[in-house]
């Protein structure tokens, strides 16, 4: 269970309408209305990317009246299919999907089986991307692609589909950079 106690709010008088915050929000919770940023509270996971990028200090963190809770019960879906998605993604089901919220990959796979088709859907279902927003984005993209989802082109610079893994390195690169343990680390992954 991920409990989100905060939310971001725009101070309209300070907002200059630069739109920087729109493209860094992991759940696409920010829209522009009359040249001012407006945050959809129901989608805000309080990651603070918008606060961090805002050069005008026009966004602040506020405590929610009631915490927003997010959780996916991985046992509520077909376990074979959870395993299959994780396997195709070369991710162990018990690996962290998100370190900040202590969410496992199996919960991400379950979110997909429950209907999530984008990294934003996954974030809103599981509560991930409410911390650093970084590592869980990658894991979400890998799980979605393993489930056969085609990721859409990036919305400006919101999120780019670049998910190269050890398993995608071409043989000529492996041969050229033999002192980088590409084969050996793959072996460790396999055993793991």
């Amino acid at each position, binding site marked *: 269970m*991920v*409990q*989100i*106690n*905060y939310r971001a709010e725009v101070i309209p008088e300070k907002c200059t309408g630069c739109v*920087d915050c729109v493209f*860094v929000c992991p759940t696409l919770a920010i829209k522009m209305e009359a040249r001012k940023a407006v945050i959809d509270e129901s989608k805000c996971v*309080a*990651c*603070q*990317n918008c*606060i*961090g*990028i805002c050069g005008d200090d026009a966004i602040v963190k506020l405590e929610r009246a009631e915490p927003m809770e997010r959780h996916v019960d991985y046992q509520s879906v077909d376990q074979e299919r959870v395993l299959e998605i994780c396997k195709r993604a070369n*991710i*162990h089901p*018990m*690996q*962290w999907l998100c*370190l*900040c*919220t*202590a969410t496992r*990959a199996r919960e991400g796979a379950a979110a997909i089986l429950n209907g999530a088709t984008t990294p934003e859907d996954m974030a809103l279902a599981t509560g991930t991307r*409410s*911390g*650093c*927003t*970084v*590592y869980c*984005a*990658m*894991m979400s993209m*890998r799980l979605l692609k393993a489930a056969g989802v085609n990721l859409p082109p990036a919305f400006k*610079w919101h*999120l*780019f589909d*670049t*998910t*190269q*893994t*050890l398993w*995608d*390195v*071409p043989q*000529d*690169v492996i041969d050229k*950079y033999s*002192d*980088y*343990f*590409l084969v*050996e*680390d*793959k072996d*460790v*992954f396999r*055993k*793991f």
Partner: protein
Amino acid sequence: MLDVTKLKKARPSYIRKSMYGPATETGLPAMRAADLPGMVALPVQSLFPDIPKAIYIEGDNLAPIRKATEAALAGVDMSKIKPDSSVNILTSQYGFMIMGGFAYREMVRTIKEIVEQRTGCTNIRLRIATGFRLKEPEEIIEHYGLAEMFDGKVSPALYIDRAVAIETPIGKLMGIRKIYDADYIIHVHHGELRELDMHRMISRTMKPFSMSYARFETRSVHHMNFGPRSSNLIPRLIFESPFVQEKFTFGVFLAASPQGVVGVEAGNDLMPIDRRLMLLAFKSYGKIRELYNEIKDCVCVMDGTGEPRYMVGGGTTFGNLLEAELDLFDLDTVPISLGFGLYQPPPTQPKLKAVNPAIRAMVMNHFWIGVPQLELATACPMVLVGEEMFKLVKEDCMNIEMSKHVVTAESLPAAVHFAKKVAQTDKVIVFDGAYGAITCSEALADHLIKRAPEVSRRVEEEMMPKWLRQRGLDPSEAL
């Protein structure tokens, strides 16, 4: 043998105020751990006389830094840069944490002035990259007067900001546009050991190209999608890309040992610098790391600037004590890593926990949030000092479960007293940013003094020869 009762009082590094630290009245802790009764400064030099000596330590005059930078740049070719070129000097937040940050600042200033003098170029801008603390570059700019130094041409480079695609042999990877938005770049980093579990001294000089200078997708490719050794190919592929090579001019590195800043390395070719910094790391940190492996029980006190993993004690980051039971210079060793999801160690490795079991308790007197680090609180008892520290942890979005795994004490002495009781040890080590000496309790100092000779022998005769052979170097010639 050293007499612990005659050791001097420790001199911790000063703490920089930040919005990422506890909101105490002063922004600083009420008491420093060095001021606790029975704490001493154990000189690194007395343990290992062969660790490279410092030309600068916090508080010293900065002239040796300027002189070393000038000397290092003397042999660097700057002919790519023309008077009408635009140049970005690329820096990272961690450089400003080393010994208070003024050595790094002085190196940056010297580079700017020398480039201006030698090339006639005046459009030199400063870019400051960061980890997860998005406002930290703004704090750095203000604290170190960098806007004045660069006539306002200074900007944070955030990993969530606009991108530039970089073609590599494994496909497109994403850089931060602000890093590359000049004709040329100068790569200004440091050679401190910092996080050996990640970089393994493989392409160490290039790592910022897939971290500091990269968008978050590419940082994740590096950390999450590769193993702890193979991940270091990512920075090399980015660095060697035609896009980066066209812009790259030279690199400059603040070289460090546990003693302090030992010099400045610079060059147009990063590979020889990589080799020199690797050898320096073996000589500088090999013995300290192994000495930390001789600590079998201790209380760790966090009392400095930054996140715990990168806080310095005895001139060496806490991350190296966290992983001390693994010889991470040995390339056969595979640690628990982000790539493995921090879930369990790879088979055949002896380490079972993400945190060195010798760390029996932690006391958090002062640190910054801004990195996922829940495992610290779940793996060992953690005591926070003061309500402000608890509030900081409770509101930390990167560790939302952490506050459920900690207790709070009202003062540092109370916290340490409690932690020692829980840990059942009187060995205390402090990560307070100090170089040149380990801030620790007399009991730990006594233990370390006794273990140092055997550590020295083991590293010289058994470990270092293996590290060198693994990199194709002849131990009899390399050092």
